[in-house]
């Protein structure tokens, strides 16, 4: 086995044509076998379409390899049943169904016990509101339902499309913490506009521009290079810092009030202070009990691949067998 683990998901030349309009002209991306891979790009670059294309929710051509298996000809439900949790951009919550029913839909009969314990530990609120119609939930609560659905099964990959879009800063932090924790066990493909969040969560990133892959590499490298970030993402460094600032305040406040399960997040606020934040932020989550394994995530280059390779590699072999 090479030091770098084989990617869990490999997308090659993904093309999407909708109503005669070419939306994607050939997207290439890899989702690492561990950690979070962020998909970045301006509005209209094709981020959501890429995700929908991977899942087969829009007609597409190209190659989508999930742990070595070609899935481009699979129907969406068949692909998802191979172990994908998907939280779409609009959250995809069924408004007239109750919270419990929304979660029950995500159960996969015959694919192991649904992890309600985990979900209810992470989102105690969802247990309290189990019988409430999901349409009456706040945006943040709906996002929790959407993410909870991805955590209910022993998925191999979680795809979250702009999970923090339109949420209050406090909720953004909450969602980020859950994603961070989820990414410890399962690789996450995260579409995100919030650079502060990307900085905090993502180890790898893919930048899309006009329906093509414009850049792919370690997230920290891109974010450290203000010039490249501006060119690829069209965001000023001030804007980035600005949003980072909000993030940090929000995190600080959550530290006290947040759910006990993710305790020890008091110092997550450090995440907003710049590149050191990556180490700080992840370290804080590490406080939940897996400090030893995730503590080193702050250094994106040295050592990390070997460490992260172990678990997903085993999963891959399992799948091949």
């Amino acid at each position: 086995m090479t030091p770098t683990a084989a990617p869990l998901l490999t997308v090659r030349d993904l093309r999407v044509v909708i109503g005669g309009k070419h939306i994607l002209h050939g997207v290439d991306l890899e989702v690492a076998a561990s950690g979070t891979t962020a998909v970045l790009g301006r509005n209209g670059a094709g981020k959501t379409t890429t995700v929908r294309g991977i899942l087969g929710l829009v007609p597409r051509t190209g190659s989508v390899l999930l742990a070595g298996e070609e899935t481009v000809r699979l129907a969406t439900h068949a692909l998802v049943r191979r172990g994908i949790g998907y939280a779409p951009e609009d959250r995809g919550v069924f408004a007239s169904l109750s919270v419990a029913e929304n979660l029950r839909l995500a159960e996969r009969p015959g694919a192991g016990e649904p992890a309600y314990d985990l979900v209810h530990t992470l989102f105690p609120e969802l247990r309290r509101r189990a019988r409430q119609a999901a349409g009456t939930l706040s945006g943040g609560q709906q996002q929790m339902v959407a993410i909870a659905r991805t955590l209910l099964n022993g998925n191999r990959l979680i795809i979250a499309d702009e999970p923090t879009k339109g949420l209050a800063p406090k909720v953004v932090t909450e969602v980020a913490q859950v994603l961070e924790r989820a990414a410890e066990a399962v690789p996450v493909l995260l579409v995100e506009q919030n650079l502060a969040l990307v900085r905090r969560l993502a180890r790898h990133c893919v930048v899309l521009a006009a329906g093509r892959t414009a850049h792919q590499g370690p997230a920290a490298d891109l974010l450290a290079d203000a010039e490249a970030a501006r060119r690829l993402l069209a965001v000023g460094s001030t804007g980035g810092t600005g949003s980072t600032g909000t993030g940090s305040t929000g995190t600080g406040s959550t530290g006290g009030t947040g759910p006990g399960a993710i305790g020890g997040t008091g110092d997550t606020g450090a995440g907003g202070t710049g590149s050191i934040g990556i180490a700080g932020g992840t370290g804080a989550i590490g406080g939940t009990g897996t400090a030893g394994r995730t503590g080193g995530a702050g250094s994106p280059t040295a050592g990390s691949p070997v460490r992260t390779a172990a678990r997903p590699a085993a999963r891959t072999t399992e799948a091949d067998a």
Partner: protein
Amino acid sequence: MSTVVLLTFTGLGLGALYFLVASGLSLIFGLMDVLNFAHGALLSVGAYGTWWAASGHLPGAGSGGAGFVLAVVFGTAVGTVSAVVLELAVIRPLYTRPREQILATVGVGLAVPALLSAIWGSDARPFPGPKALSGTFAVLGAEVPLNRTVLIGAALAVLGALKLFLSRTRHGLVVRAGVEDRAMVTALGIDVRKAFTLVFAIGGAAAALGGALGGLYFGSVDPEQGTSLLIFAFVVVVTGGMGSLTGAALASVAVGLVQQFANYYTTAGLGDLAVVVLLAALLLVRPRGLTGRLA
């Protein structure tokens, strides 16, 4: 007074018939975006299946007692099977072409009644029903035909069963979720196409049952019966809000009653017009139907 009672029962009976057609129509449209123009044909298939069986062609079935029940079961079963075949053979291959799906059901809706009249003639055939159901019973001085109550009872039973199915079973959950957002259901790893076949089977069964019992109500079967009922079922579905079962039930009752009362107290035929005018008025006030569901 007795006239009002009679009209109420007749209107409710008609509404029950509408509901049996509209419930499936509404579910199919809600889940699949397919406006099933062949739904009237399914009703006709059910009616002819029952008529055929009750006329002594099916061993054990007949026009009275248990024999008639067997005939109704047979007609409903034939309608259900036809609906499943329709979904699998005609609708499913056009999954990615929604407009063509509707057009294909239009073709089937034209062809099936034509085939029925090719086989059994285009004239109405007297419908053999049990003697027990041909009588009347007295309510508040009115002599109400029993077959009205049979229809009302059947519609209530179907409504109850559908409600239970939708709220208590996983398949029902999938259907309700699919009415809201079909793509998201597949994105949760559920093969929504199974639900398509299922709603077609349910809708076909309800429509065929409507056909079987409609034979009692009208006293005869003819190939165009289903198609003419279908149009009022469409009115019901739009009025009730597409994809909403409760809306369909409410709208069925409203349409049936308005039609009967207006037909009786004004000129014959005006009731049918009144229903359409009401639909237009409703759409002007609430473009999304009574229940506010997508239209």
